[in-house]
């Protein structure tokens, strides 16, 4: 096996909390994306046998074709990475990871004879414990039962992948996906003792969007999670200053009015005089402690709570700037200015846009974060939203796999290098 072969067969696998992004180096800049979930089919049922369903578990794009009632959905659908951590003994979750990995590799594994497996670079949460690394390597070994799909593998934390993709050795990475947010200072390697995890991501904004839809008379739609997510992405706005944005919306209702038609359906949503609530969606991601959200909590909307998973605390209500400051202040004082001077925002939760006509009140994730940090007295802040924030982890996996030579073997003490699994 030579270096040239490896460079042509690097394969990135980003196990996000909601989406699984994957693909070989040959895909260019955009990976394939499927939901990080698996559906356990009731293979004992008569209908399954009649229909010739042989699979125990379905992943990828075929999942919607096997869905049953809502009650069954809750029992049979497994989202293995909801918090970024899979419990050691959660065999169903590990089974989903195994199936998803196989699904991804088989889409791209070439049929020619001289194919001897991919060089797989996987990326998982920075708070993932060591047993997840061990188990994932086991999963990769399992992939080679029939034919060799993986020659060697390595695993890197998601924030490090972001830093690699942007060639920034000293920075603070804020990775915010569907289920959680990781704030991780990086000084060549992730400063693990300084990592702050938040128990909220895009899903928190989805929950608020569902409440807004209920208030606007669309309670029936609020139950459909993927639809709510789509509505959030279409109508949600991030305010520069929430009070001023609401005031603007109330005095300029036509400029802020949100009306949306779901393609391929008869569903049309119009928030009418509640269109000002569009600004709440973005604010909630950055600052759920704002007093305006109390009324939602009082009416039963779940408050993002502090939880302990494994050895890691996930904070629920800490605002985004506070999380960055708390994380950076755990690092040596000499390093802190450098960490503030390069903050990389990555993940689908930072893709806020400014619609035309709302430039004075709406903002983007980088500007919002910078303003919040400046308000708390931090100087010389530079915040950047990574290009294609959803894919920067996958891109980092590809860059890492390409650069690390094949003879650099995995070392547990440094958690880097290639583990031969073939």
């Amino acid at each position, binding site marked *: 096996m030579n*270096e040239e072969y490896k460079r042509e067969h690097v394969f990135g696998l980003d196990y996000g909390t909601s989406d699984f992004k994957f693909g070989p180096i*040959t*895909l*260019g800049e*955009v990976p394939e*994306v499927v939901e990080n979930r698996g559906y356990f089919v009731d293979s004992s049922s008569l209908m399954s046998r009649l229909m010739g369903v042989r699979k125990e578990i379905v992943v990828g794009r075929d999942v919607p074709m096997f869905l049953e009632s809502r009650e069954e959905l809750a029992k049979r659908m497994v989202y293995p990475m909801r918090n970024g951590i899979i419990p050691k003994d959660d065999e169903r979750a590990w089974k989903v990871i195994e199936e998803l990995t196989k699904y991804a590799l088989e889409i791209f594994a*070439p049929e020619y004879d001289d194919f001897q497996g991919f060089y797989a670079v996987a990326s998982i949460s920075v708070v993932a414990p060591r047993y997840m690394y061990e188990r994932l390597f086991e999963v990769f070994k399992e992939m080679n039962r029939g034919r060799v799909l993986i020659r060697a593998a390595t695993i890197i934390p998601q924030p490090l992948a972001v830093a690699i993709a942007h060639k920034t050795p000293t920075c603070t990475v804020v990775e915010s996906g569907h289920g959680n947010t990781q704030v991780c200072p990086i000084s060549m390697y992730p400063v693990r003792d300084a990592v702050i995890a938040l128990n909220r991501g895009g899903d928190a904004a989805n929950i608020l969007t569902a409440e807004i839809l209920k208030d606007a008379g669309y309670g029936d739609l609020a139950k459909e999670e993927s639809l709510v997510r789509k509505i959030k992405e279409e109508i949600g706005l991030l305010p520069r200053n929430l009070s001023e944005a609401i005031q603007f919306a109330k005095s300029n209702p036509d400029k802020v009015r949100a009306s949306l038609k779901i393609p391929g359906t008869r569903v049309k949503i119009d928030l009418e005089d509640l269109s000002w609530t569009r600004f709440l969606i973005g604010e909630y991601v950055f600052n759920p402690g704002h007093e305006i959200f109390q009324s939602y909590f009082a009416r039963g909307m779940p408050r993002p709570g502090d939880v302990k998973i494994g050895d890691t605390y996930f904070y629920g209500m800490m605002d985004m700037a506070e999380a960055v400051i708390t994380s950076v202040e755990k690092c040596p004082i000499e390093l802190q200015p450098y960490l503030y001077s390069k903050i990389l925002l990555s993940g689908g939760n930072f893709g806020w846009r400014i619609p035309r006509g709302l430039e004075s009140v709406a903002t983007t994730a980088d500007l919002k974060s910078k303003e919040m940090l400046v308000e708390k007295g931090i100087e010389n802040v530079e915040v950047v939203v990574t290009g294609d924030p959803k894919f920067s982890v996958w891109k980092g996996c590809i860059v890492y796999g*390409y*650069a690390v030579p094949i003879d650099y073997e995995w070392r547990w003490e440094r958690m880097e290098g290639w583990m031969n699994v073939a």
Partner: protein
Amino acid sequence: MLRDSGPCIRVVCKLRSGDSDVEALFRALEAGEWKLAGPKLSKGEFEAEILSSSLEGDEVIFSLRSANPEVLEDFSRAAIRECWYIEVHYHLRAEAAEKAAENLGIKLGEKRVFRIKEFGVQLKVESFPAARALTISYRVGWGELNRNVMKKIHEKLINTKSPKSLLDRIMGWMK
């Protein structure tokens, strides 16, 4: 699902082992008026990004967003001074992939590798039907660059050549 249907072009510069290095390559690009700023290179309105380089320093990957064949050729002409050869990779998705497959006379519906000779250069074409993706790569050196092969292949894959109107053709013939 997110799809990028625009072409993504990567240029892989294979450096001459022993007597060239990454810094020499950057100097050659600067001599070709490509300005280097951090991981980005620019010339006028066009940009390239340094995507990665091998730890051995024998190979550098650049990503070009521009679908302009002149830019691709200009960039490669500057880089080839320090390179053993250059590999060009096209990563096409969705409609762009289907169009390129049609232009090359192949079908996207089958996962396989095709070897196709165009303008004296061997193209390696990999199709991934499940992802509606097509990857095309080929190698060039001085000789191919001097024959404007890159531009011709680019036009074949992306179909950028502006079709002449009937009037243009008639007038051209009359001249």
